[in-house]
């Protein structure tokens, strides 16, 4: 049971990361690879604030706020300097690596002596509340005029222009919110594991994408609202399966491969299922 709870908790922390990636990867259709730098960025920011005496809740919020700056940087790089978004994200990640080291002057910061956001009660419950709040806010946002324009930007920029709006503005908003969420996730992880380390971001993009992909395979009835739910469920499932692998005492050397295989299995299932669906529904859907 305890292990299930650990996996659930980690899944909840990563679900915020997944919701952030949802905005860039799925909605805006922009590959933002800066997450590997933004995730620890949030953690290092948290460490800085908590070490100068700011309370854990405010420190965590500030990590979100400053985290949005990473999105600002990436967007500036690809709009003002006309660098490809993919490359822009990598550049931001590279810059953040140095920034992270500079924030506290060290690559590893123990947090054992500081308070954390989980002190006030059950970690699981607190995480559940945080994730629900984030989800609800995000869902509400995506139902606003601005939110819909963000979706339209990812769908068809020509439409956004014809509505008299600048699509770049919405890419900026999307990237800022996304990176803020990734940084928030990093700050929550730091408090959870008890320390901040510069290697925290390694392979994090795999976790995020895996969560989104797994979430997509769950029951195909989709509205934009459900996408956030799917990201959450996907992250939790991914972590639970990983946790089971560890608990079964599987060969430690195979751990990384297993995580990759999980993703592949779900993608394959996804493809197989949609092929079946297309085959079945060929008659009904396409006629005028």
């Amino acid at each position: 049971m305890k292990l299930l709870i650990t996996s659930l908790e980690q899944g909840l922390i990563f679900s915020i990361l997944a919701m952030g990636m949802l905005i860039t990867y799925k909605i805006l259709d922009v590959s933002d690879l800066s997450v590997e730098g933004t995730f620890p960025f949030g953690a290092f920011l948290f460490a800085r604030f908590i070490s100068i005496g700011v309370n854990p809740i405010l420190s965590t919020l500030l990590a979100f706020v400053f985290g949005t700056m990473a999105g600002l940087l990436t967007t500036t790089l690809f709009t003002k300097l006309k660098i490809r978004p993919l490359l822009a994200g990598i550049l931001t990640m590279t810059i953040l690596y140095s920034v992270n080291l500079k924030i506290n002057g060290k690559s590893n910061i123990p947090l054992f002596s500081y308070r954390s956001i989980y002190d006030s009660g059950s970690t699981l419950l607190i995480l559940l509340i945080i994730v629900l709040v984030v989800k609800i806010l995000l869902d509400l946002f995506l139902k606003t005029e601005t939110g819909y324009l963000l979706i339209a930007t990812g769908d068809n920029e020509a439409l956004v222009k014809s509505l008299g709006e600048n699509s770049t503005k919405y890419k900026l908003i999307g990237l800022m919110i996304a990176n803020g969420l990734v940084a928030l996730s990093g700050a929550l992880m730091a408090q959870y594991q008890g320390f901040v380390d510069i290697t925290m971001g390694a392979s994090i993009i795999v976790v995020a994408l895996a969560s989104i992909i797994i979430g997509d395979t769950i029951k195909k009835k989709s509205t934009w609202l459900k996408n956030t739910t799917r990201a959450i469920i996907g992250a939790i499932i991914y972590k639970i399966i990983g946790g089971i692998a560890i608990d079964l005492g599987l060969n430690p050397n195979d751990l990384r491969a297993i995580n990759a295989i999980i993703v592949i299995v779900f993608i394959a299932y996804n493809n197989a299922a949609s092929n079946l669906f297309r085959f079945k529904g060929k008659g009904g859907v396409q006629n005028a």
Partner: protein
Amino acid sequence: MLKITKLSKSFNKESDNELHIFNDFNLEIEENKCTAIIGPNGCGKSTLLNIISGSIMADQGEIMLDENDIGKLSEEKRAIHIGRVHQDPSMGVSPSLTILENMSLADKKGEGFALRKLVNKKRIPKYIELLKDLDLGLEDKLDTKVKFLSGGQRQSLSLIMAAMKFPDLLLLDEHTAALDPKTSHVVMSKTKELIDKYKMTTIMISHNMKDAIDYSDRVIMLDKGEIVLDKASKDITEDEIMDFYRSKLDEHLLQ
């Protein structure tokens, strides 16, 4: 009313391949009427439309829309006054959103977008009324995602979305060219109904001469960036246009 004065545009400037499209071009489009622009490929009709909409910037010249100098405005700023339907049915809509959501977006054009709920339930009867005019049954599919609609349905929706806020100018950019003949006919007649009903100032680019005559008030033919034919639609027949067109072609061959 749209008034274009002394328009000049060339591509690949200062190179061996410099292409002059327009040179001191002038054109006045009447209000509340539909003007068709036809011509062979490369005559400049698409370029003209792009210059009017702002996708391309002119080198010189003035573009006045109802006393507003729009020539200096960016494409998105002009879009508030101009509605455009593209040839590609997917360009005028957001495929992953529903019909209702798409129309709600179009409904907000010119009013500014903010952190308010987009879909206004009170406007739904209005949307249904607009969709009913199309006779395509779309009014029953408000919650269907646009990506599941056919090309003709999407184009009809694009038309409504472009016209919904009564733009000062409606641009139809070969908007039925990608549809099959039957659907094309349906969309064209619906287009005519719409522009007649709301008396919209419209420029329609067409590659189909019969459509140009049947559905417009005035026909203009361009050739190499110049107006070579300008007649009221009732004063000319399809055969006359074809003869004229052929003679122009012979001219080119002889050159």
